[in-house]
């Protein structure tokens, strides 16, 4: 029994060390990516604008349909739930307050983050994992092409730009969805709805959400890249690490979100 416990502690200890190592890896990746953005030209290895643009299209434009659909749905859901809860106090028309305070600060970044983690984070992990087992990463290195500069940096730039941009879009769509339902249920006009929103939503709220979204974009990229790079074995290994990358980045998103909410509501 005691031996079991020792074994268990040993294993737990080792996975803690592994986890720390992965954090370290993330920091190194981030640092290296910044290095190549700044120093790439001097080293005759510039970060390719084309590759970055392609990633932006993939991360951002191609995600628009699903983000739009999900956001309008959640906007409507928030309105339904808000009206239903506030009716208890006979304060249904305060629903705009709830929607206006929660969408830019919470729901926009969170929903976008989770969708991007599922869509882009997973494909990043799968792509890098496949490249690793096919020796494509080795091929890049022996060609004198730095894989971080070639693959990671464009993805990181694209995510840092596109996740906040998608978040902003998602917030607008959510507010439209909510406004539509509120108009339907409470008979509030669009003009009244927008006026009320403008009283409630501050620039700070929006910035708070976008800052979070930027951080989510960076997390998703790093988690995807690290899990891809840690792939072992064949196709099965790729599947395993892809799943792991989605789970971990969603966890990272939710925990960060909670910390942000705590800090922001205190100050």
């Amino acid at each position, binding site marked *: 029994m005691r031996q079991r416990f020792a074994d268990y502690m040993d294993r737990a200890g080792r996975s803690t060390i592994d986890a720390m190592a992965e954090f370290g890896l993330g920091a190194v990746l981030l640092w290296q990516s910044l290095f190549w953005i700044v120093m790439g030209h001097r*080293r005759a290895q510039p970060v390719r604008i084309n590759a970055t643009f392609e990633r932006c299209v993939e991360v951002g434009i191609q995600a628009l349909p699903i983000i739009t659909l999900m956001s309008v749905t959640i906007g409507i859901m928030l309105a339904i739930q808000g009206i239903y809860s506030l009716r208890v106090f006979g304060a249904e028309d305060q629903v705009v307050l709830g929607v206006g305070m929660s969408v830019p600060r919470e729901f926009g970044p969170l929903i976008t983050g989770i969708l991007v983690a599922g869509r882009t984070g997973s494909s990043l992990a799968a792509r890098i994992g496949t490249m690793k087992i096919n020796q494509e990463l080795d*091929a890049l290195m022996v060609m*004198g092409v730095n894989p971080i500069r070639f693959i990671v940096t464009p993805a990181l730039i694209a995510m840092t730009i596109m996740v906040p941009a998608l978040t902003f879009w998602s917030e607008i769509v959510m507010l439209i969805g909510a406004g539509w339902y509120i108009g339907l249920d409470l008979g509030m006009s669009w003009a009244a709805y927008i006026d009320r929103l403008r009283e409630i939503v501050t620039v700070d709220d929006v910035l708070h959400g976008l800052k979070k979204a930027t951080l989510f974009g960076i997390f998703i990229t790093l988690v995807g890249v690290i899990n891809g790079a840690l792939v072992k074995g064949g196709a099965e290994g790729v599947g395993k690490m892809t799943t792991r990358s989605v789970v971990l980045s969603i966890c990272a998103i939710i925990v960060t979100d909670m910390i942000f909410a705590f800090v922001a509501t205190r100050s």
Partner: protein
Amino acid sequence: MSATAVVHEGPARTPDLELVAMPSVIEVIDLVTHYGSREILHKISLNVRQGEIMVIMGGSGSGKSTLLNTLLGLVRPTSGIVRILGEDLNAISDVERTRLRQKTGVAFQGGALFSSLNVLENIMLPLREHTKLDVQTMRIMARLKMQVVNLAGFENLMPSELSGGMIKRAALARAVVMDPRILFCDEPSAGLDPVVSSAIDDLILTMREAMGMSIVVVTHELESAFKIADRICVLDKGNILMVGSVEEVRGSSNERIQNLLNRRTEAEILDPDEYLKRLTAAND
């Protein structure tokens, strides 16, 4: 077919006397490489001369890939020196290493073509990354190399649409597109049927004739080794058993070399305990 039945084919070899005077392009001195705590290569020393085809031969698990990866700078040795074109691979700066790597080309076992790029774009990639040529010129250069490997006309296919032999050809074309001084080939005949594999061997010989580079080939195929090698380095359990010409290796009285030539491999391990021990050792 027994090993001794293999006859010499292909272009005539450069006489050995001439090679001896040639300077080394690769020098390996007392190389030791570990994976974790397990020592894989035990104090290996080896020279590859300008213009020769050196075949690194050995059974599976003998450390061929590890040696190749160390020569490529993908695995860092525990001790010892790897000098490529006179430069110590593990002592030079990143910038110098990048420059050095433009003078070497590698054809990986599975090709390692980038799956998101078509054949032409794959072959052009080193040019794109390391030269300031305009796209038209790069296309022409890549097409020329595609002709050398008999892939003309397949420019727009994706790697997933190629056969095994075509993948190897494309990988060779990409490896030599910068006209390297040294070409490395990992298992060029692995996974190919004998006819295709023999054609790839011919191609390696042709490329040496045409471009005059030094070539290091890793293989476990005897026929292929005997056909293309100027010298063979026989690797066994992380040690070099001998380095010599095809005739010298064939005529060797070393028992382990004869076993290898006659494909008498060690008896397969069927004791579960022993096998599991090996497995865990390999995973460390």
